[in-house]
């Protein structure tokens, strides 16, 4: 069997509850061999006896000894993964897929995340901060449904303290105890005072949010070719054979999940049945 089709056993080292239904798992390979990945790639995570599901890697690519996944429990497999505790065993295939592009030197890098979409972007944010001198501004714009549904809240606090990263967080609605922004993510883009010639946008989140965000970025003068998005689709084989994730002429697992906006925009405006 091809190595890309055979799961490698990993042990759950620790878990953290991010929100009511979302968990972050730190995994370590039983064989000890780190799983090296590029930001934006995903693995197929296998809950033995239940099934397999594609999950973006959300850890630091400079620290591959720990494979970090953030998973929302929405189906049988993801519920089984989220229920795993320290010492439990999961299978991992991958990494798969096309990574986020490495922005050219001097570029202002704008990360636009919505909801769980911060997870696939976080490795790219780590990489940008690891190589901070290379970039102009590093901007993280993050939106969620409500304050209690934001991911990585300690991480957000740490990023907020940095003077080499600009973080703006907004939620759709909040109680009166929330002292942050309430509004939509495209509004953050409009307020970020971007230089359209210097900016590259990496976006991940619900597709409707990404479409509105890309529209806002393009309206600000950013070339659509400098806008990249990561898509979710029903990946099964992860190697472009089974066709479950086909979108137009692309297989999201093999040709994505990261696409330049002009590559994929026409398909995203087609209603699915």
């Amino acid at each position, binding site marked *: 069997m091809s190595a890309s089709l055979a799961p490698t056993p990993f042990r759950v080292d620790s878990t953290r509850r991010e929100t009511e239904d979302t968990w972050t798992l730190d995994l370590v390979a039983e064989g000890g061999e780190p799983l090296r990945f590029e930001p934006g790639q995903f693995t197929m995570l296998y809950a033995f006896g239940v099934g397999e599901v594609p999950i973006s890697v959300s850890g630091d690519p400079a620290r591959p000894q720990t494979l970090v996944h953030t*998973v929302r429990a929405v189906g049988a497999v*993801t519920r089984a993964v989220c229920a795993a505790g320290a010492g439990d065993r999961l299978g991992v295939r991958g990494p798969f897929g096309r990574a986020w592009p490495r922005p050219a030197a001097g570029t202002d890098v704008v990360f636009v995340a919505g909801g769980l979409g911060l997870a696939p972007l976080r490795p790219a944010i780590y990489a940008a901060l690891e190589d901070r001198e290379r970039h102009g501004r590093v901007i993280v714009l993050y939106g969620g*449904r409500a304050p209690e549904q934001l991911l990585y809240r300690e991480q957000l606090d740490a990023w907020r303290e940095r003077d080499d990263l600009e973080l703006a967080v907004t939620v759709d609605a909040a*109680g*009166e105890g929330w002292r942050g922004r309430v509004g939509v993510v495209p*509004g953050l883009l409009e*307020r970020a005072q971007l230089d359209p010639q210097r900016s590259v946008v990496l976006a991940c989140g619900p597709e*409707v949010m990404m479409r509105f965000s890309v529209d806002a970025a393009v309206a600000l003068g950013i070339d659509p070719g400098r806008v990249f998005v990561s898509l979710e689709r029903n990946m099964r084989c992860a190697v472009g054979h089974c066709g479950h994730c086909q979108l137009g002429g692309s297989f999201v697992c093999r040709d994505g999940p990261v696409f330049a906006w002009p590559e994929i925009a026409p398909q995203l405006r087609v209603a699915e049945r």
Partner: protein
Amino acid sequence: MRTIAELVSEAEIFAGMRDEHLELIAGCGRNEVIRDGEYAFHQGDPADTFFAIRTGMVALEIAAPARPRLVIETLEPGDVLGWSWLVPPYRVRFDARAVGTVHAVAFDGACLRGKCETDSELGYELYRRFAVVITERLQATRMRLLDVYGDPVATVG
């Protein structure tokens, strides 16, 4: 200390307006400081004032029986707080609470409506600009009605 005329000429909502119009608008304006937690206005109040926010943040809230107060939008420097002064029945629809100290230029809406009645060019300019504000807020509201983060289809991620 900056004059109201200076502050009006710098406000985003009035950018590019003719000097004589800015002067008319400034005649209806005054400086206002809203302390943290204080309300600029409450739901149901006569909509006789609107604000051009200079510093600080304002939370638009709504209260409903047996439910906690809900913040539905925040407004920031450069934003306009209040457009009900332009639209009958001239009543405020939400509560507006300062989050931190807010400095703003407050405008007497009734005064400005009167000037718009007698100067149709000024009226056109103001309605045109506020139409953009109202449209942007409507679009943002529609976007939130989609509840995009409630989508349960989470595979990658």
